[in-house]
């Protein structure tokens, strides 16, 4: 998916020479999402639009991106910062191509979740919260993913991997590396999710 060709030239978003703007295709989707909420309550669309923005603009929310979203919804930038810092699915710093989030909460912990984390630390040679030097993987610990009967669980870019073993993790990592060299392997995007 190459969106760089049809960027919207809006003077508001030409900060520091960078263009932050959705493609017209995505913008249409965003507008249709905003229509789901009363006309005087456009702030309601903030969470879904931030999900889309995070996906469209490199996997994290930069200040420029947040300011852009604020302008789109007609709210103050601080209102976006407040929200983006509150929810754990929004990343404020650049992440790797794959964000690996390992569940560490109760039921997963007693079914081997801690061991999966240890294995990942060993294989990727990074600490939780860090990104591998090649920019491929970011490792994170997260709280309950709601998949307690199928633990241990990890989520890679919002895709679930369940019943993990160290062997299975190795296989998943290898597949990810291979995918990354070709095309985007992931589940469909947030934009595609909303009909």
């Amino acid at each position: 998916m190459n969106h760089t060709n049809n960027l919207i030239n809006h003077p508001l978003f030409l900060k520091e020479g960078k263009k932050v703007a959705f493609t017209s295709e995505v913008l249409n989707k965003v507008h249709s999402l905003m229509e789901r909420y009363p006309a005087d309550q456009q702030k309601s669309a903030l969470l879904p639009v931030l999900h889309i923005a995070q996906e469209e603009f490199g996997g994290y929310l930069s200040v420029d991106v947040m300011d852009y979203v604020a302008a789109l919804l007609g709210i103050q930038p601080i209102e976006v910062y407040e929200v983006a810092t509150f929810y754990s699915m929004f990343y404020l710093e650049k992440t790797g191509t794959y964000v690996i989030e390992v569940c560490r909460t109760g039921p997963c912990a007693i079914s081997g979740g801690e061991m999966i984390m240890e294995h990942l630390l060993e294989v990727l040679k990074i600490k939780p919260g860090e990104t591998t030097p090649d920019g491929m993987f970011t490792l994170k610990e997260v709280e309950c993913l709601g998949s307690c009967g199928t633990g241990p669980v990890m989520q890679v870019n919002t895709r679930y991997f369940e019943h993990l073993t160290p062997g299975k993790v190795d296989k998943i990592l290898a597949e990810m590396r291979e995918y990354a060299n070709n095309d985007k392997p992931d589940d469909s995007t947030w934009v595609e999710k909303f009909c």
Partner: protein
Amino acid sequence: MGGKILLANIDVPGIRGYDVYRSNGGYTSVEKALREMTQAQVTAEVNKSGLRGRGGAGFPTGLKWSFLDRKSDKPRYLVCNADESEPGTFKDRYLMHHLPHRLIEGLIISSFALGVKTCYIYIRGEFKYLVGILEKAIKEAHLHGFLGERILGTDFSLNIYVHPGAGAYICGEETALLESLEGKRGNPRIKPPFPAFKGLYGCPTVVNNVETLAAVGPIISMGGEAYAMIGKGKSTGTKLISACGNIKNPGVYEIEMGLPVEDFIYSPEYCGGIANDKYLKAVIPGGSSVPILPADLILSTAKGEKRLMTYESLADGDFESGTMLGSGGFIVYDEDACIVRNTWNLTRFYRHESCGQCSPCREGTGWMEKVLYRIEHRQGKMSDIDLLVRVAKNIEGNTICPLGDAAAWPVASAIRHFRVEFEEHVLHPAAMLEKERHLKLKY
């Protein structure tokens, strides 16, 4: 196994799609409600059914609906709480994944009864893959005239929208959910006013759990009285229990309320007993927030009666010797489980998920986590155990929303029932660590 109600036809191939769902009796309850019944009649059936909120609190659904401010001329909203984040709970996810139309059906009937024209499904952001499934189901329902303008030729119109959250357990609390839906931080609101009067956008609003709303369709089909015949006493109908932990068959089970806990744990139909044939040590029966009970007290009450899977039986003995049915997140611990480590783990969860708005929860969850961390990591003192009890007591009941209680109960109950284990950690820290290292190898 008794007849399935919520999960009926779940094994039919393609039941997720409209056509198969419809040909297996789907949407007939919508036709019945919209064509043959009035709003009041639908509400009356829900009242008769004795349905109680399946999200955790167990509040009678009909009663909750009756609080809705019907005098206001503002629009009314129905919000479906699909922010399932309670550790140990994964029933709503299962239901929406396999039977999205069951939920849509319930939403249509409930909206009709409440006079709602716009309904939002607030789903936790981590369940992104379900957003596509739900959106597709909604689109199909539109296509076949069950959503949109003038449904089935009646005056009733309805739109349902899916709204993803973005990673915050607190948004499962209904007013935090509404704040989040309005595009704000998930800070629970100060009540009163309650959502029934001032909910979404300050309008009268009902917030119900996925499982609760999904039960409305079957209740209309079979009639409230027939539904109330199922179950035991005030715990009517069936309940989805998501079982996990050290058991042979983790998964989601639909049980008739009143099933003995012992049967649920050991019957091959359900959990199938403890994994690797170990002994049962403890159970958290209703999601991580409810008190943990040791094996003897979960199987029978302090009075010696068989403990049943009902709201009342599980709560028998209050918090001295009882617990709660909660959301039905059934977590089983075998003989090897370390209660201290587990309590620390869950407290870390609550610390991470506290919104930070009110002082007892913001400061108290962090304090308990730090103390438990020390006890678990060889640096505990005997006085720490009583300190934990005191901090938990100071949080409980003094916060804006129930998250404070949810954080305090696991700590208080773990110390109440397993105090010796905490003391052992303080007295023999090295031995405890050695034991845990050994246990890690078993996976």
